[in-house]
């Protein structure tokens, strides 16, 4: 039969019981929790899964599809390990959806995991291509934080604007039972926290967390046999730019180019013309507060340069114009790299089903997951999901 991505449905989702410093758990433990929760949520037996994709960024977490196979004994089927920086989980989901859309498989699973706290050191362990001296000194927060001075100069972005993002996301995360940070913070606390990189203080940065998430994916026509409230895919975009952002004279640090390009793809696929009116909620990649401000602009929820005000005025709150990170985002869940994309899709699925575990966006029908990777925006994956297209 001829399929498209619009025939793809998610019928089950799961995640590790809690995100955070899971010193007592291995990557296998986290995957066990996430994958079986997803399978049980779908009512699908592990033996029904025909193919798998697993997002992992760090070799120390695990390599190859066997990292997914072993903890749930999913042997003898094709399983692919996807790596695309912080977008590894979203790319696992995307490939799983494409496989179903291709007609090759009927029932597949996408998952992602990262076990970061087995490592030492401060911040994220090194990731990505390395040269002994060229590009030395860059860190995750500085790679994104380099946008601040440009935005300040061009648009008057302020330190307070950044802090408002943390306050909003902490308020959301405080309500989520799986979040790493489950406490609210004040503007003053955010601003007074010690600097990690430039204007980005401790509370502007997502924490170092372990976690896993998993999704069971099938075709719409099959989904109906398992549940009525499945959600469907409206868009699956991926855009890859360069590993060498600070060496690209055309890169202006005003927008994360892969987000802009992926959003163009996604809105075209979904037929969305006015994202602010047509999208109810978005889990966006807020690895750092400044990243979320650029994301909001890059995704077209407001004009370039107005992202700070958009958050400050409460338009990104759960009951605002569009709920940005109703789960609390990376800010509160941390960023177990390979897991994040799948965690976002899982959250969006629950929101669209009206069974969000944290704050629920009332009447959510269309939701977005936005996953950004690389040192300042090398790769971006976007999924748009819907609860309205089930019976189309």
């Amino acid at each position, binding site marked *: 039969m001829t399929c498209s991505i619009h025939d793809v449905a998610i019928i089950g989702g799961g995640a590790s019981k809690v995100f955070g410093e899971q010193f007592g758990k291995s990557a296998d433990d986290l995957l066990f929790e996430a994958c079986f929760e997803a399978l049980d949520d779908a009512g699908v037996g592990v033996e029904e899964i025909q193919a798998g994709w697993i997002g992992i960024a760090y070799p120390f977490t695990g390599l190859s599809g066997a990292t997914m196979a072993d903890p749930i004994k999913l042997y003898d089927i094709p399983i692919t390990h996807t790596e695309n920086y912080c977008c590894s989980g979203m790319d696992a989901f995307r490939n799983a959806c494409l496989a179903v859309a291709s007609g090759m498989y009927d029932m597949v699973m996408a998952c992602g995991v990262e076990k970061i706290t087995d490592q030492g*050191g*401060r*911040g994220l362990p*090194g990731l990505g291509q*390395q*040269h*002994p*001296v*060229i*590009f*030395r*000194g*860059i*860190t*995750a*927060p*500085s790679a994104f*934080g*380099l*946008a*601040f*001075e*440009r935005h300040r*100069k061009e648009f008057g972005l302020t330190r307070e604007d950044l802090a408002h993002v943390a306050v909003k996301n902490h308020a959301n995360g405080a309500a989520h039972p799986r979040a790493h940070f489950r406490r609210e913070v004040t503007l003053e606390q955010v601003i007074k926290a*010690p*600097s*990690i*990189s*430039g204007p980005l203080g401790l509370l502007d940065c997502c924490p170092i967390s372990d976690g896993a998430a998993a999704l069971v994916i099938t075709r719409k026509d099959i989904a109906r046999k398992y549940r009525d409230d499945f959600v469907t895919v409206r868009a699956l975009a991926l855009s890859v730019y360069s590993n*060498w952002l*600070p*060496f*690209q*004279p*055309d890169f202006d*640090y005003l927008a994360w180019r892969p987000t802009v390009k992926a959003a163009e793809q996604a809105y075209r696929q979904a037929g969305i013309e006015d994202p602010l009116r047509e999208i109810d909620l978005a889990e966006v990649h807020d690895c750092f507060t400044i990243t979320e401000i650029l994301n909001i602009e890059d995704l077209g929820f407001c004009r370039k340069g107005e992202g700070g005000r958009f958050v400050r005025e409460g338009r990104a709150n759960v009951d605002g114009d569009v709920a940005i990170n109703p789960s609390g985002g990376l800010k509160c869940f941390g960023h177990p790299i390979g897991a994040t994309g799948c965690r976002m899709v899982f959250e969006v699925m629950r929101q669209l089903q009206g069974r969000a575990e944290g704050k629920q966006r009332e009447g959510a029908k269309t939701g977005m997951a936005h996953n950004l990777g690389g040192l300042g925006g090398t790769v971006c994956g976007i999924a748009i999901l819907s609860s309205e297209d089930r019976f189309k």
Partner: protein
Amino acid sequence: MAGIKSFGAYVPWLRLSREVIAKGWGIPGAPGTVAVANFDEDSVTMAVEAALNCVEGFDPASIGGVLFASTTAPYAEKSLASLVATVLDAPENAHTADFAVSLRASTSALLTALDAAACGRADNIVVTAGETRVAEPITPWEQTLGDGAGALLVGEGEGVIAEYLGFHSLKDEIMFTWRRAEEDHMLREFNARMAQSMGYEKVMVRAIKGAMKELGLSPESVARAVFTAPDFRSHGRIAAKCGFNPTAGQVQDALFAFVGGTGTAQPLMMMAHALESGLKEGDVVLLAHYADGADVLAFKVTGALAQLPPRRAVNSCLAAQHPLDSLARFMRYRGLTVIPTLDDFGSPVQTWRDNSQVYPLHGAKCNKCGFVRFPIDRVCGRCRARDDNTEVRLARRGRVFTFIHDNLYPAVELPTTLAVVDLEDGARIFLQMTDRVPDEVEVDMEVELTFRLIHKGDEWNHYFWKCRPARRGGE
């Protein structure tokens, strides 16, 4: 006619006041400062900067030799002259040699270069010396030693600004100061009074007088006496004994007030300073340097000195300075306190492959559309021309496009200022910023590039370029 064709010097930006040292230990302090290499500087990075200042305006392809001298070279086995020559973009067949062990390594190198130029074996030989000696805390040496580098370009022909007249050399077997090869990181001495009077004063005076006699010079006929000394007091003691008049400007300042004793680098720095300070055609200059013996060289200034375009040497470096207000930081830079090692990644294979990008900082210029970029890649990012580039030397100045002060990168000192810089040739490059006051960094500020130690991952020194706020000098 062989002689000196150009000069350059480098004094690090940080100056530690002797008062800060004295307060730190509760001991009496002398006035003035000592120059301190920043944590990303060593003898070879400073020698590189002095050499770059020296060859400014000269075609790198004309460099016939690079001689590096230091008793504090970062390697016991590994040529640094080859590194300096590579950074300078000297041709492959330029003669490279390293001079070490003796504090007279620099004058040894200078004599070697002058001989090579005089016999016509080589022209445009860069002689450069850098020094970062470590004194034992709470000794007078701690307030005496300073860091710095000097460079002279030696050659023959019309461009000679100071003609080489001849030399005189004396040996002196004595335990003055020493560091044992295996055991010592810090300077050792036994009886300073004996060493100063029986070593430096006696032998240096005899050598200077011997040189003047051999070359038919009287003390009055010497326009500038450039003689080094192990310390400030000793320097003051011998001028009269040689027949020089320090009050008449005949004696070149030994730089102890603000720089300190720079060992091997001292004679080259003092000579560079002399050449930028009022010498005129026909002036005779004596350059004398003592360390377990003395080398005395005589030069006569030519009319070409006035034609040499201005360049950065001691004067401009003295103007670019910043107080180092902490003895603890000084000790950390000197390796006298335990600092966390930066567990960074290194591959001698990758660095070797990218030699021309890492050291002389070459980029690619598209032959079709002119796009200049770094690192070198094979497809033009603007017009997609394939394998149609010319390798070019990137501009050494530019403007900050954006920056951040990062506290996460495991550096010797925080914050690490990271900058995205638009170079004057249009290339954009990511660099760490050094020798800056964080609060003064801003978008669009003008910066210049400086060659620094980036990290010591995998047990070897990784050098590359950083940027720093643009300085004056050499205009």
